[in-house]
């Protein structure tokens, strides 16, 4: 065997055994029948997939898409001007970029817990508002869709800012200057020139936010409480409390497939190919 093959071997073995094989197993499980005490039994069936079409589960699917979509839209709206600012910041570019990235690299759990601490009934916001006598009883800020959205946007905003910045950075400044020279006001230059030519960056960033939002588990669990169930929570529930592995496997595969399709689109489409 050649040197190169030896170097690739450990990664190939590890990824085959502990990434591909587990997926193959849940792929098989999703077509089996639920066992009486958890686990799986024969016969083969497509019942788990049929159950996903049940209105109860369609609602969860719809809700996950909706929350992930809205979080992505907010990240785009918030992240674009931030990336634009950083790309025009001259010498301080790197400093600002580090400031965006630092909270992103700190613990995900801690970042989510911070919002729990701020939003709960005896949290920072409610304490301040009641101390100022603005409210009498605490506002229900936690355990709802709004809290989940906030948590997701907070966690994944840097996922959008980074590729967006990379795109804007590479933009030829002469384009915007030409538009300005021809008499376009700044907002018009932005709308008709900068945004259209940076569309690949917007799409890449949006997909990078949408994928983890769609599969989110920790954020809806901690900030949404039991009320805001998304696909990730459904999967976790089927593998733990509900002990319906075939159904949990089917839901996992749907989630996995959605993420994989988005990844393939992003890495093969001409416009966004080189951005990852």
């Amino acid at each position, binding site marked *: 065997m050649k*040197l*190169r093959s030896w*170097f*690739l071997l*450990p*990664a*190939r073995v*590890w*990824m085959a055994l*502990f*990434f591909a*094989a*587990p*997926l193959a197993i*849940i792929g098989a*499980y999703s077509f089996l029948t639920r066992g009486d005490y958890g686990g799986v039994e024969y016969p083969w069936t497509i019942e788990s997939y049929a159950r996903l079409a049940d209105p109860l589960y369609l609602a969860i699917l719809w809700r996950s898409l909706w929350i992930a979509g809205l979080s992505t839209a907010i990240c785009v709206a*918030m992240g674009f*001007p*931030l990336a634009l*600012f*950083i790309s*025009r910041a001259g010498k301080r570019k790197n400093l600002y970029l*580090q*400031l*965006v990235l630092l909270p992103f*690299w*700190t*613990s*995900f*759990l*801690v970042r989510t*817990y*911070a919002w*729990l*601490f*701020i939003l709960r009934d*005896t949290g*920072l916001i409610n*304490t301040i508002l009641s101390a100022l006598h603005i409210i009498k009883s605490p506002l229900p800020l936690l355990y709802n869709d709004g809290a989940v959205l906030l948590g997701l946007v*907070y966690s994944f*905003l840097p996922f959008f800012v980074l590729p967006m910045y990379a795109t804007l950075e590479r933009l030829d400044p002469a384009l915007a200057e030409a538009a300005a020279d021809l008499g376009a006001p700044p*907002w018009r230059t932005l709308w008709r020139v900068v945004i259209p030519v940076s569309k690949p960056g917007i799409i890449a960033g949006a997909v990078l936010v949408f*994928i*983890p939002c769609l*599969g*989110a*588990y*920790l954020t809806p669990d*901690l900030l949404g409480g039991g009320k805001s169930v998304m696909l990730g929570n459904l*999967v*976790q529930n089927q*593998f733990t409390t509900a002990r319906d592995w075939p159904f949990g496997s089917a839901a*996992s595969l749907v*989630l*996995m497939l959605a*993420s*994989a399709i*988005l*990844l393939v689109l992003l890495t093969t489409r001409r416009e966004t190919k080189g951005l*990852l």
Partner: protein
Amino acid sequence: MKKRALGIYAALALVFLHLPLAVLVVFSFNQGRFTVWEGLSLHWYSAALSDPQLAEGLLNSVIIAIVASVLATVIGTMAAYGMWKRSARVLEGGMLLSLVTPEIVTGVSLLALFQWAFRFLHLHLGMYTVIIAHVAFSIAYVMIVVSARLRGLDRSLEEAAMDLGAGPWRAFFRVTLPGILPAVIAAALLALVVSFDDYVITSLVAGVDSETLPMVIYAMARRGVSPIVNAVSALILVLFGALIVLAERLREQ
């Protein structure tokens, strides 16, 4: 005018990103239990440091993170080098896919694999299953960081070494590896952080005797808020911050 508006917005956005963490840290020094400032105190830090559950979780997390990041760094670096020689499409695609696979899916699929294997092997979930899982999701991070560095490396260096009589192994260890070492160490630090931080996958594949620090924190956070969690969070923020800044420095070298 327009430029100033953008600047103000950017400042607000950066405040949004940092304020929650700052608030968390500030209140970790609060004397009282509630979110009302009652004076400076290190009480919650000493409570955190003397909590036996946290101590056990920390020990488990440290062992897991060190073992997993060393393994992932070796495997990921080797893979990056192999791909640098000639691309390995399937492996690379698989690694990218592992990065976008929702954590919960990775977690339940590994759980399914382990439970299936336990039917033939008389084993049960423990620290080693957590380590296996962490290595599996860290390899891709390491590969990406090291590959980026290799792309900037001059291929003729290795050829020159081989022309001078070094074998391919010797050329790798004496020429290429020293050239990418900063990136390898940076990748190891990143792997350490990702492993130390993981909750979702870990909670699914950990055994009763291998609760990690994030699992203990999570349980505490769900039970209600204790300022002890703030203190632990602040310590984690400082630790992670230091590791990441160090990794960035190394990567830029």
